[in-house]
């Protein structure tokens, strides 16, 4: 498993180094991140984060605040490190032996990479939705109930039933599946599966939800539903979403961060980034000159 993930994450980085667009961009002198990487009521503060896969550095010195109850979109060309950065936020990178993280990542002021931090507890607070819908090969009910069960969030069956229903309702899936809660979750359509995965994540009642290109495997209608859902979820959760689609970033997020070659180039209000980017690279990317 580790190798597969590692390749998925690390390979594009290395490819990019020899890619045609990088020769040009390598000449550009990297400056400090432009825009407003910091905010007042930060839920997560990252300071000077560097990530290495063995000897390859994937993330260079990224400092970024993620505000409470905001949706922040991470955009950038393939292999720019946005997925890697996302995975450092709930320590999913721990599963990769050769991955090393330097710098500080503070969740509510506490460093999540400190010795005493339990990664299992962290992941209960910072949930994750993956690129490809990955429901467990179990019933819809069991998919959603799994998290609450292992964490012991409910006292009895009735409470669990209620929580499952509430989570499915929040994910906008309950009406579609209420008659077949005990049918296998893998029998749903792709979009429904992804909403099931979101329901599964919010059933644990995390504070932050990380989404790694949640709609990239879905058709436009299913994508629209997911985006609608993200808009509703931001009332209760802080959401960090990695996306390849700039339209999607524009539709769902309040702030946007642009990554390039492992560096955080520009952060700003989404409107400003897409209408009036400050950095040359950001402008090139959003006008489609590479990516």
């Amino acid at each position: 498993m580790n190798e597969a993930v590692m390749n998925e994450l690390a390979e594009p980085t290395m490819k990019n180094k020899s890619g045609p667009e990088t020769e040009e961009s390598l000449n550009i002198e990297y400056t400090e991140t432009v825009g407003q990487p910091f905010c007042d009521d930060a839920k997560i503060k990252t300071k000077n984060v560097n990530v290495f896969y063995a000897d390859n550095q994937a993330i260079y010195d990224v400092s970024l605040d993620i505000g409470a109850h905001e949706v922040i979109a991470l955009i950038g060309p393939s292999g720019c490190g946005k997925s890697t950065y996302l995975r450092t936020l709930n320590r999913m990178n721990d599963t990769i032996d050769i991955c090393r993280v330097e710098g500080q990542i503070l969740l509510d002021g506490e460093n999540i990479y400190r010795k005493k931090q339990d990664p299992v507890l962290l992941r209960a607070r910072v949930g994750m939705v993956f690129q490809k819908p990955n429901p467990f090969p179990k019933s819809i009910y069991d998919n959603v109930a799994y998290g609450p069960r292992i964490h012991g969030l409910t006292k009895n069956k009735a409470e669990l039933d209620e929580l499952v229903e509430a989570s499915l309702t929040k994910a906008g899936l309950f009406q579609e599946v209420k008659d077949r809660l005990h049918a296998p979750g893998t029998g749903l359509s792709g979009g429904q599966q992804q909403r099931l995965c979101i329901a599964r994540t919010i059933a644990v009642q995390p504070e932050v939800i990380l989404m790694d290109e949640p709609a990239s495997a879905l058709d436009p209608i299913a994508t629209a539903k997911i985006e609608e859902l993200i808009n509703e979820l931001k009332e209760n959760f802080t959401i960090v979403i990695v996306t390849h689609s700039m339209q999607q970033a524009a539709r769902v997020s309040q702030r946007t961060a642009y990554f390039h070659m492992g560096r955080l180039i520009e952060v700003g209000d989404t409107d400003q980034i897409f209408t009036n980017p400050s950095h040359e690279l950001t402008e090139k990317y959003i006008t489609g000159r590479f990516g």
Partner: protein
Amino acid sequence: MNNTDLVKQSLQKRYLKERMFKAMGFISIATAILFLLILLTDIIGKALPAFTQTNIALEVKLSADDLGINANSSESEIRNADYRKVIREALSRLFPEVTSRKDKRELYTLTSMGAEFQLRDAIMDNPQLIDTTQRIEFLADDDVAAVVKGAIDRNLPESDRRVKNQKLAWIESLETKGQINSTFNWQFFSNGDSREPEMAGIKGAILGSFFTLLVTLALSFPIAVAAAIYLEEFAPKNRFIDFIEININNLAAVPSIVFGLLGLAVFINFFNMPRSAPVVGGIVLSLMTLPTIIIASRSAIKAVPPSLREAALGLGASKMQSVFHHVLPAALPGILTGTIIGMAQALGETAPLLMIGMVAFIVDIPQTLVEPSTVLPIQVFLWADSPERGFLEKTSAAILVLLFFLVAMNAIAIYLRKKFEKKW
């Protein structure tokens, strides 16, 4: 000449190659099926006679005087009474013309050595039979059975025939009187091994195999699955683990007799475990089966999509929970298939068990794991090695039984794989 023509030209050649490849594949499969059919018909043809037993019905006078017992005799007296005498008398009465000592001795070989035990058991079951005359069907000797079943050709000249004219005449006279009949050979499934082919049964070997495999399964399945999970999911990636992995693969290729030697040296000589016992056989076979199951389990675990592990970890499941709640159930069909294939391999294994003394001639049917016993393939080996004509059919019958268990185990493997297979 344009491209279309060039393609057309090469097309014929390509199609010819494809047809030839298909034909070769078909021929090889057909050959394999043909040989399988030849093998099976040969074995089944030879084995079928083993499933009938030949009996000789005799009027025996169970007089108390001759037996030296009466209805009130104690059990041990009944057990030790002289039953041979009354059976011999019954035979002599049938053929009064036989008078010389030599001929009489020949006459008495018509019934099996087991006939007197048969009579003894009948009287021990029901002592009321004493002082009556009963018509009892006694097991016939294997030569008689061979003649009746046609395994010995009656038309051969006497010099080439194992059963001489005199004996053949007796058999034919019994046949015309309707005193010879054939019944289904239940004894084959209820007796242990015997020196007499007509009495030899396979139950001892079946139970021996069962006990041995029980030990093998109980030891190798949990150890192998635990090892596979550890190596696949928890072990750090370093030289030492690589070394262990290489050695597991090497172990799978070690000749099985080496494991037998190891069992002899370590378990029997050093730990003083009982010789010829299923428990030692099971331990030795589990050493042999471990690599098979580990390798199968590891590839099954490796085949579980990483997204499933990530999903569990992302929800806050611990590593252990993600493995036991999600990875293991998903890998179970592959693990079970590997286990049953390993077990089937162990069932057919002979060489290592020879080394630990399971090749001994054992009449008693084993009741526990520490009693001497033998196993099915060794029973085949022992019978194939015996000179008596009757063991030929027993050998084939034992092979059939062994094949039956192998097919049954593979069928279970397929069933389990289908049952636990989940789609995602």
